[in-house]
């Protein structure tokens, strides 16, 4: 297969499919087993320094933020992160020193809120390295190639651009159409965290609303930790099996973490906490502010429940539910002039 062009980005989290199959054979259980555990235990057990990590969800939507805070609390080091529309998650992981290398589709920004001061600073100062560039579809399809147990998947994006040149993709001539086509290498992250609406104790998961990339990412993951708003009885899963979007045999740990996506949005349950986001965006303009934020909200609390008390407790959580359900107006201090 003649390669017409080759991206010079670092090839990350790729494995020869046979090598990955052997890993799956030896490391993943096909048994229905009770996989419930605490968040502290799950993060301690499955996240190793130097791992390539990816988060389910998108930006600040249905991201397992509780796991992010726990990784920071456990002071994980030298992580490489999939910047697959990474927003608040990557920003605080970089700010806290856990992540020092990134593959970027979208990172260092906070979508409508503007750019992310802390992580931009880290990249511009050279303390964080961008190892490869890619597009959003490119990331989605890297995970899809992995989900299918393939070495690569073709695509018609990224062609002709520097995004390609700084990626780990290759261009070949398609033997069917005779035209150049881009091949995206599979991406099998070492650890993936996905936050879901509900699952049973074995890890059979349901998600309401958009799936984003998680249908594929769950299969691409070597280790998969599911955090869930609630654990439900197995029979509820089995009465509507077409609602299962992640089957138990992919899942290594099930952790019940209500409000686990805060300060992000959990569709149908709670909207993002834009007051908290504004506080972070303001504080993170300086290294001192970053330190203050982390001391207060992460190192200074024992666990995610204590954090939830700190950000405003039941009252705040009720308000975010009302915003989500369009019953209260959104307060977004960052939008004020």
């Amino acid at each position, binding site marked *: 297969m003649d390669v017409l062009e080759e991206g010079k980005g670092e090839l990350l989290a790729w494995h020869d499919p046979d090598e990955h199959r052997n890993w799956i054979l030896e490391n993943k259980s096909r048994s229905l087993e009770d996989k419930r555990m605490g968040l502290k235990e799950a993060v301690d057990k499955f996240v190793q320094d130097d791992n390539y990590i990816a988060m389910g*969800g*998108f*930006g*600040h*939507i249905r991201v397992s933020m509780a796991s992010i805070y726990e990784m920071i609390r456990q002071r994980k080091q030298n992580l490489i992160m999939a*910047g697959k*529309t990474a*927003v608040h998650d990557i920003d605080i992981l970089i700010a806290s020193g856990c992540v020092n290398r990134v593959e*970027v*589709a*979208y*990172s*260092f*920004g906070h*979508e*409508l*809120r503007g*750019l992310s001061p802390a992580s*931009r600073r880290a*990249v*511009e100062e*050279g303390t964080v390295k961008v190892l490869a*560039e*890619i*597009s*959003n*579809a*490119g990331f*989605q399809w890297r995970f*899809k190639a992995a989900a299918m147990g393939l070495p690569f998947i073709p695509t*018609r*994006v990224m*062609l*002709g*651009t*520097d*995004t390609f040149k700084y990626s780990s993709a290759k*261009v070949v001539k*398609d033997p069917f159409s005779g*035209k*150049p086509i881009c091949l995206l290498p599979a991406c099998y992250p070492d650890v993936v965290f996905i936050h879901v609406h509900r699952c049973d104790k074995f890890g059979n998961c349901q998600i309401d*609303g*958009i*799936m*984003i*990339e*998680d249908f*594929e990412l769950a299969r691409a993951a070597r280790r998969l930790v599911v955090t869930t708003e609630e654990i439900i009885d197995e029979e509820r899963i089995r009465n509507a099996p077409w609602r299962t979007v992640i089957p138990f045999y992919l899942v290594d740990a099930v952790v019940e973490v209500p409000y686990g996506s805060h300060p992000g*949005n959990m*569709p*149908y349950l709670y*909207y*993002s906490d*834009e007051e908290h986001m504004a506080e972070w965006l303001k504080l993170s303009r300086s290294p001192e502010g970053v330190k203050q934020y982390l001391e207060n909200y992460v190192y200074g609390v024992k666990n995610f429940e204590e954090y939830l008390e700190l950000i405003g407790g039941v009252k705040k959580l009720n308000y975010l539910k009302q915003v*989500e359900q369009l019953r209260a*107006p*959104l307060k*977004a201090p960052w*939008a004020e*002039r």
Partner: protein
Amino acid sequence: MEKKVEYNTTELMACAASKILEDGKSVFVGTGLPIIASALAQKTHAPNLLIVFEAGGVGPRIPMLPISVGDSRTFYKAAMATSMDYIMSTAQLGYMDYGFLGAAQIDMYGNINTTVIGSHDRPKARLPGSGGANDGGSLCWKTIILMGQDTRRFVEKVDFLTTPGYLTGPGAREKVGLPAGTGPYRVVTQLGIMGFDDKSKRMKLLSVHPGVTLEQVRANTGFDLIIPEKVTVTKPPTEKELKILRTEIDPAGMVIGKS
């Protein structure tokens, strides 16, 4: 009888972009102004415009301005709440008519940079990267770019080519394997509306906004912009459009308040 209608630049850009969209077509939208322009089109001349979000929302009834292209507002009462794979796949299949992009830099062929200012490895300013821009700009039939216009942004050569415009000119997209017949269609800035010359694929001025001179446009463009003999003046926002923008689409002024 004519009353002077007051509006800011963002409102003008939203209205101008909105008018580009045709009814019965589909649009792949990004955060901020694109959503606003698309929602305005739906509420005015294009009620049957299909709005699609890259994270999975298809045809929602957007109840308030989403903060992210994936947040719950992007699939509120949608026809379908699906995946990024699904959306990108149907874009690759040819189902997406318009794509909206923002840009930090653009060149005469509509090539876009949203990745880095300066060199990639030692950036002067690190920007978020492609996001879905490269995908939209590769796969949608017509892309519309919304951005500010000045000589730092309208440049001879972009520091990093994040998203393909016409690359090096006619035929270049097809030559590298991008879908045939696609490419940048309009660029809407605070000064005017640009298109692309059919033959040379170079950027061409189509209209200037009310009160803007050709001289201002030239002075804020860092490359040789084609300025045809006939340049029209952009239609200003109507009172009706402004009312919809201010009371229905962005009542909190999260985007249009910032101009």
